[in-house]
C-alpha cells in the first residue's frame, strides 16, 4: 500500500478543504511550525483507518472544528489491484466509501470491512496497515486496548506474510486457546501465584473433606474401641458376678463367718469373767484404803480438839483486856469535846463583828458616789434645756447646697443679661454742652446704653426721644434664668440671694454650737440622763450609825485568832477520838477471835465424838477387807492364766465379716457397673457407630481416591502448561528471527553491538542489550526509546517490503528527544529505507529536518 494523496475537510482547524499531494513513493517530509496541522493530519489518518464512520467516540468528536461540521477524510492509495480512494465522513450524514480506479466498490459497512482487512491482518488476507509513530509516543504499543490488540494482530500477521509460518511456529490462536484452557482448568485447582490449592476449589475442598473424614474416622475408631472395651468389660463383669454369686462360694463365706463368730463370742465371755475378777480385786483394794483413811481421820480429830481448847482459852483472855482499854479511852474524850465547843463559840462571835465592820466601810463609799452622780445629773439637765433651742436654729434657713444652687442660677441670670445687653441696640449720647439727656428725669451717664424696650429720653433743649428697638430681640433665655432664680428663692422662703446667704450663715453657726453641747452632754451622761438617774437610785441607803464597832483591822485580827484556837481544840479532839476508835476495834476483834475459837472447839469436839465411837469397828473391818482382797487376787490370777486371745478372735471375725461384706459390695458395684455398661453399649449400639465407621472408612477411601485423581489432574495440567509454554517460547525465538535480522543493521546505525529482546506476549521489544548489558526498555531515556520505536517500525516495514507488500510508515514528530548527532544517523537510515519504502515524516523542527531531504509536502487549499 502506498499513500498518494490526503484530503481533509472540517477537521479541526481545517474548516476549509485542504489537500496534500502528491505523496511520493520514498521519503516525504511535512515540515511546518507548531499548530500548523501536522498532528491533525496524523489523527485524521488514524480515524480514517480505525474509527467506523458511525462512531461518535471521543476520537471522532475531537476532530470536529469548534464551529461544528462533519469531519471528512479522503485518501488515495495504490494497492496491487489499482488506485483506491477511501473516503469517510463522521457525525452528520456519516458515510464511508471505497472507489477503485474511479468506480465505487464498497460503501458503508462493506467499506469498513474493506478497511479492516486492509489495516488488520486476516489469517488469509495477509497484512497491511500503516506503521505509526506518534508525536512523543515512545511506546510501541497502542493507546487503548482495541488499538493495542489490532497492532498486535498486525505484527503477527506481518510476520506471517514474511515467513508464511508464524502461525505454525507459535501456534497462534489455537496455542492461545490451549494455554488459556489449561490455565483456566488449572486455576480451578491451584493458584497461579503459589501453586497451592485454590481456596474453595475442588482440590482444596477434596483435601478438606479428606481431613474431615480422617478426623471423623479417628473419632469413630475411638468410639468403636470404647464400645469394644465396654463389651469386654461387661463380659468380665458378668463373669465376676457369676463367680461371686456361685452357691458354693456364698456357703463357704457364710460358714467361715459363723465359725469366727462362735470363737469370738467364747473369747468375749471369758474376757467378761476376767474383767469381773479384776473389778472385785480393785473393790477390795478400795475398801482397804477407805478403812485406813477413816482410822487416820479419827486420830487427826482428836488432836484437833485438844488444840482448839487451848486456842479458845487464850482468845477469851485477850478479849477481856481489849474491852477495858476501850472503855478508858472513851472516858478521856469528854473534856476535849467541851474545849472544842468553847473555841467554836468564840470564833463565831469574832466573825460577826468582822462582818459588821466590813458593811460600815461599804456604806461610806456609797455616799461619795451619790454626791458625784447628783452633780452630773444637774449639769446634764441644764445642757439639755439649751440644746432644744440650738437644734431648732440649726435646722432653720438654706443649706450650703441651696446657696450653691442660688449662686449658679444668679450667674446664669447675669450671663443672660450680659448677652441681652450685647445684642441690644445701644444709644450713646454725645452732648456738646453741659446739658445731659434724661431718662425718667435722671441724667444719663456717658457711654453707650442698651435699649431693651421702648424707652423715652428727654433731651433738654430738644424735647423727647422715644426709642423702640423692634421685635427682633430674643430674651427667652434670660426670662427662663430669671424665672428659675425666682422660683429657687421662693422655695427657700428668701427674698433675695443676699438674705439667703445670711440665713445660711446663721444656720451653720447654730449647728456648730449644737455639736459642742452634744459633746459636753456625752461627757456628763454617756448613757443618757435616764441611765444616770437609774445609777443614782440603785445606790444603797446610808447605814445606821454604830459607834461601838471596832475598826476593820482589829475585827479581822480577832477573828483570825479565834479561828486558830478552834482549830487546835478540834485537832486534839480528833486525835483522842481516833485512839478510842482503834481501841474499840481491837476489842471487837478480840471478841470475834474468842468466838471463833469457841466454835472450832465445838466442831472438833463434835467430830471427835462421831469418830471415837467406831475405832474398834474400823480396825476389824480393815482386817476382813484384806482377807477378801487376797481371795480376789487369787481368782484373777487363775482366770488370767486361762484367758483365750480375744483380739485374734475379733480379727478373725472381722475378716470373715469383711469377706462377706466385700462380696456384697463387689456384687453391688458390679451390678452398677453392668447397668452402666448396658446403658453405654445400648447407646453406642443405637448410634450405629460401627456402621458409620464403615461408611466413613469407605468415604475416606473415596476421598483419597478423589484427591489422588485431582492431584493427577493438576500434575497433568501443569505438565501440559510447561510443555506448551516451552514450545511457544522456543517458537517465538524463531518467530522473531526475521525481525531481528531486519532490525540488526538498523540498530547498528546507532549502536554498533546492540540487540533487542522481544516479549513473547506483546510481540514487542522489551529490552535493549548494549555492551552485554541488558536494559529494560522502560528504563531507557526518552530519546533512546523513541529511536528504538522508530527503528523497530522501519524493521517491520522492511519485512513487509521484503514480502512484496509495502506499507507506509508515518512519523509524527517522532524524534523530539533525539540529539542532533543521532538525528543525522537516523536520517541516514530513513534515506536508506526510503529507497524501497514510503516514509512520511511530520515535524515542527523545520531547520533540523530541512537537512533530511526527501519530497516536501504541504497543505494545499482545495477550490
Amino acid at each position, binding site marked *: 500500500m502506498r499513500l498518494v494523496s490526503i484530503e481533509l475537510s472540517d477537521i479541526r482547524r481545517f474548516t476549509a478543504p485542504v489537500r496534500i499531494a502528491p505523496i511520493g513513493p520514498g521519503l516525504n517530509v511535512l515540515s511546518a511550525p507548531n499548530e500548523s496541522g501536522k498532528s491533525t493530519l496524523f489523527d485524521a489518518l488514524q480515524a480514517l483507518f480505525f474509527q467506523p464512520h458511525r462512531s461518535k467516540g471521543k476520537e471522532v468528536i475531537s476532530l470536529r472544528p469548534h464551529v461544528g461540521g462533519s469531519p471528512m477524510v479522503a485518501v488515495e492509495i495504490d494497492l496491487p489491484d489499482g488506485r483506491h480512494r477511501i473516503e469517510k465522513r463522521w457525525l452528520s450524514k456519516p458515510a464511508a466509501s471505497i472507489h477503485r480506479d474511479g468506480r465505487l466498490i464498497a460503501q458503508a459497512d462493506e467499506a469498513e470491512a474493506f478497511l479492516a482487512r486492509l489495516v488488520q491482518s486476516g489469517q488469509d488476507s495477509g497484512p497491511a496497515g500503516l506503521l505509526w509513530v506518534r508525536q512523543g509516543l515512545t511506546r510501541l504499543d497502542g493507546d487503548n486496548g482495541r488499538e493495542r490488540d489490532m497492532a498486535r494482530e498486525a505484527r503477527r500477521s506481518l510476520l506471517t506474510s514474511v515467513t508464511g509460518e508464524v502461525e505454525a511456529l507459535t501456534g497462534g490462536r*489455537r496455542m492461545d486457546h*490451549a494455554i488459556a*484452557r489449561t490455565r483456566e482448568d488449572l486455576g480451578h485447582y491451584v493458584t497461579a501465584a503459589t501453586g497451592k490449592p485454590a481456596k474453595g476449589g475442588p482440590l482444596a475442598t477434596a483435601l478438606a473433606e479428606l481431613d474431615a473424614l480422617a478426623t471423623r474416622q479417628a473419632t469413630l475408631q475411638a468410639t468403636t474401641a470404647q464400645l469394644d472395651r465396654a463389651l469386654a468389660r461387661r463380659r468380665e463383669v458378668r463373669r465376676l458376678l457369676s463367680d461371686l454369686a456361685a452357691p458354693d462360694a456364698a456357703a463357704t463365706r457364710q460358714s467361715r463367718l459363723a465359725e469366727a463368730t462362735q470363737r469370738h463370742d467364747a473369747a468375749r465371755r471369758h474376757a467378761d469373767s476376767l474383767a469381773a475378777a479384776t473389778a472385785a480385786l480393785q473393790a477390795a483394794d478400795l475398801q482397804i484404803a477407805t478403812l485406813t483413811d477413816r482410822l487416820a481421820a479419827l486420830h487427826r480429830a482428836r488432836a484437833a480438839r485438844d488444840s482448839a481448847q487451848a486456842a479458845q482459852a487464850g482468845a477469851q483472855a485477850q478479849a477481856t483486856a481489849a474491852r477495858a482499854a476501850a472503855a478508858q479511852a472513851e472516858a478521856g474524850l469528854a473534856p476535849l469535846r467541851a474545849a472544842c465547843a468553847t473555841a467554836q463559840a468564840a470564833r463565831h462571835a469574832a466573825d460577826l463583828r468582822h462582818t459588821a465592820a466590813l458593811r460600815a466601810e461599804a456604806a461610806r463609799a456609797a455616799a461619795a458616789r451619790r454626791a458625784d452622780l447628783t452633780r452630773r445629773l444637774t449639769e446634764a439637765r441644764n445642757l439639755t434645756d439649751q440644746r432644744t433651742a440650738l437644734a431648732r436654729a440649726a435646722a432653720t434657713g438654706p443649706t450650703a447646697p441651696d446657696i450653691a444652687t442660688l449662686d449658679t442660677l444668679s450667674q446664669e441670670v447675669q450671663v443672660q443679661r450680659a448677652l441681652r445687653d450685647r445684642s441690644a441696640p445701644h444709644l450713646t449720647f454725645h452732648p456738646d454742652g453741659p446739658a445731659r439727656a434724661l431718662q425718667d428725669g435722671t441724667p444719663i451717664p456717658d457711654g453707650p446704653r442698651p435699649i431693651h424696650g421702648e424707652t423715652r429720653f428727654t433731651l433738654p433743649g430738644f424735647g423727647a426721644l422715644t426709642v423702640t428697638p423692634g421685635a427682633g430681640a430674643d430674651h427667652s433665655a434670660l426670662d427662663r434664668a430669671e424665672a428659675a432664680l425666682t422660683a429657687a428663692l421662693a422655695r427657700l422662703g428668701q427674698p433675695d440671694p443676699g438674705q439667703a446667704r445670711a440665713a445660711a450663715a446663721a444656720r451653720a453657726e447654730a449647728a456648730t454650737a449644737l455639736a459642742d453641747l452634744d459633746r459636753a452632754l456625752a461627757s456628763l451622761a454617756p448613757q443618757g440622763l435616764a441611765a444616770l438617774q437609774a445609777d443614782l437610785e440603785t445606790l444603797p441607803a446610808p447605814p445606821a450609825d454604830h459607834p461601838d464597832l471596832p475598826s476593820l483591822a482589829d475585827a479581822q485580827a480577832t477573828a483570825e485568832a479565834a479561828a486558830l484556837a478552834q482549830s487546835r481544840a478540834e485537832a486534839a479532839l480528833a486525835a483522842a477520838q481516833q485512839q478510842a476508835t482503834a481501841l474499840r476495834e481491837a476489842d471487837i476483834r478480840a471478841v470475834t477471835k474468842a468466838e471463833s475459837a469457841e466454835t472450832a472447839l465445838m466442831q472438833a469436839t463434835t467430830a471427835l465424838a462421831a469418830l471415837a465411837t467406831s475405832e474398834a469397828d474400823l480396825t476389824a473391818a480393815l482386817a476382813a477387807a484384806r482377807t477378801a482382797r487376797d481371795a480376789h487376787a487369787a481368782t484373777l490370777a487363775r482366770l488370767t492364766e486361762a484367758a483365750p486371745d480375744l483380739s485374734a478372735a475379733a480379727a478373725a471375725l472381722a475378716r470373715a465379716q469383711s469377706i462377706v461384706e466385700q462380696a456384697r459390695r463387689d456384687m453391688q458395684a458390679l451390678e452398677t457397673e453392668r447397668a452402666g455398661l448396658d446403658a453405654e*453399649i*445400648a447407646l453406642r*449400639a*443405637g*448410634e450405629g457407630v460401627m456402621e458409620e*465407621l464403615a461408611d466413613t472408612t469407605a468415604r475416606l477411601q473415596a476421598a483419597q481416591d478423589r484427591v489422588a485423581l485431582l492431584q493427577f489432574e493438576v500434575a497433568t495440567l501443569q505438565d501440559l502448561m510447561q510443555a506448551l509454554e516451552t*514450545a511457544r517460547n522456543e517458537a517465538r525465538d524463531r518467530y522473531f528471527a526475521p525481525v531481528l535480522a531486519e532490525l540488526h543493521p538498523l540498530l547498528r546505525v546507532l549502536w554498533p553491538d546492540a540487540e533487542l529482546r522481544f516479549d513473547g506476549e506483546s510481540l514487542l521489544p522489551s529490552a535493549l542489550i548494549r555492551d552485554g548489558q541488558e536494559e529494560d526498555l522502560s528504563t531507557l531515556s526518552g530519546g533512546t526509546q523513541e529511536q528504538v520505536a522508530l527503528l523497530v517500525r522501519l524493521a517491520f516495514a522492511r519485512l513487509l517490503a521484503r514480502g512484496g507488500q509495502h506499507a507506509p510508515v508515518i512519523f509524527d514528530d517522532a524524534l523530539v528527544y533525539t540529539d542532533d548527532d543521532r538525528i543525522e544517523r537516523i536520517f541516514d537510515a530513513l534515506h536508506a529505507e526510503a529507497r524501497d519504502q514510503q516514509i512520511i515524516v511530520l515535524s515542527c523542527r523545520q531547520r533540523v529536518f530541512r537537512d533530511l531531504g526527501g519530497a516536501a509536502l504541504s497543505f494545499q487549499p482545495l477550490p
Partner: protein
Amino acid sequence: MSSFRFIHSADLHLGRRFGTLPEDLRGRLIEARHDSLHRLADAARRTGAHHILLAGDTFDSETPTDPVWRQALLAMGADPALHWWLLPGNHDSLAAEALWSRLCEQAPPNVHPLTDPAPVEIAPGAVLLPAPLPRRYPGRDLTTAMSSTPTDPQAFRIGLAHGAIQSFSEDAHNADAIIPPDRAATARLDYLALGDWHGHLRVGDRTWYAGTPERDAFTHDGRGSCLAVTLPAPGAPPEVQLIPTGRFHWSDLPLPLIPGEDAAAALARLLPPDRAARRDHLIRLRATGRATLAARAALEQAAQAAQADFAFLALDLAALATEVEAADLDHIDQAGALRLAAERLHARATDAALPPDARRTAAAALNRLYAYLSEART
C-alpha cells in the same frame, strides 16, 4: 414325611451406607436394601414357602442404628405366616451383644434370632442346624458340630452357616475357617444354606450360596436374587429355584479397544439398550487395550453424554493405553509450537526410562491437549 420348602437368602447388609457412591444415589440404594425384605416375603408367598432362612449378615454392622433394625423387624413381622430365621454372620456376629439381645427381646413371634448353635425344629420334621458366628472372625469351622449333632432320622437336616467355602470369600480373613465343600455330605445334611458370597453359587447339589437379594457392589454382575429350595424327602436332592429380587443392576463391564476402533460405538453397544431401565443401573466401564487420541476423546465424550441416564456410570481409563498416530499429532498441528509440545509429551509418555507416573502424566497431558484443540476446532 412330605416335602419341605423354604427361601434361602443371605447378606442383606441392612444399613450399608454406600459412602463411595454419589450422595443422591446412596438413599436409593439404602432404601432398596430395606425393600429386599418385602421382596423376599413376596418370593416366599409366591413359592408357597413359610420359612425364610437368612444365612448371616442380615445387618451390615454390629451396631446398626435403631431405625435400621427396628424397621427390619417390623417388615419381617408384617406377615405372621412367614417365619424368618436369622443367623449371625461375620458382619453382625454374636459379639454384637446389644444387637442380638434387642432382637431377641423385640422380635415379633415369627422372627427367630439364632444365637445358639443348638438344633431347632423349625417345622414338624424339619430341623435347622445353625452355626452362628460368635465373633467376626471365629478362626474355626463352625459347621464341624453339624456332623455330630443327632436329629430324628426321619427329619430334614438343614444346615445354616456363614463363611467361605474356598478362598474367594467376601472377606479374606477367613482362611482358617474354610467350610469344607463336602460338609453337607459329612454332616448328612439335606441342604446346607450358606451366606457370605454375594453372588448366588452352587457348591454342590446340597450346598448353595444364595447371594444377596440386592446387590451392593460391582463384584457380582447383575441383580440380586434368592433361592427357593424344596426338599422332596429326607436324603433326596433338593430342588433349587433362583428367584430375582434385586432392584438395582450392577455391571462391571470391560471395554476392550483397539486402535482405529470407533470407541463411542463400542461403548454404545455395551450399554443396555433399555434406556428406561438405566435409571436402576450402575455400570463401571473399564476401558482396556489401546485407543487413539481421537478415539479416547470420543469415548470420554460419549460416556459423559450417557452418564445422566444411569444411576451410576463410571469410565475407568487407567488401563487404556493411548495410541498416538501421526494423524492425531497432525490434528493438534502439523508443525510449530503445538506440534512440538505434543511430540514432546508423546515422547515422554512412551519413554520407558521415565517413572510410570511421569509417563501417565505426560500421556494425560497429551490427551488433554488434544481435547482442548478439539474444542477450539468446534
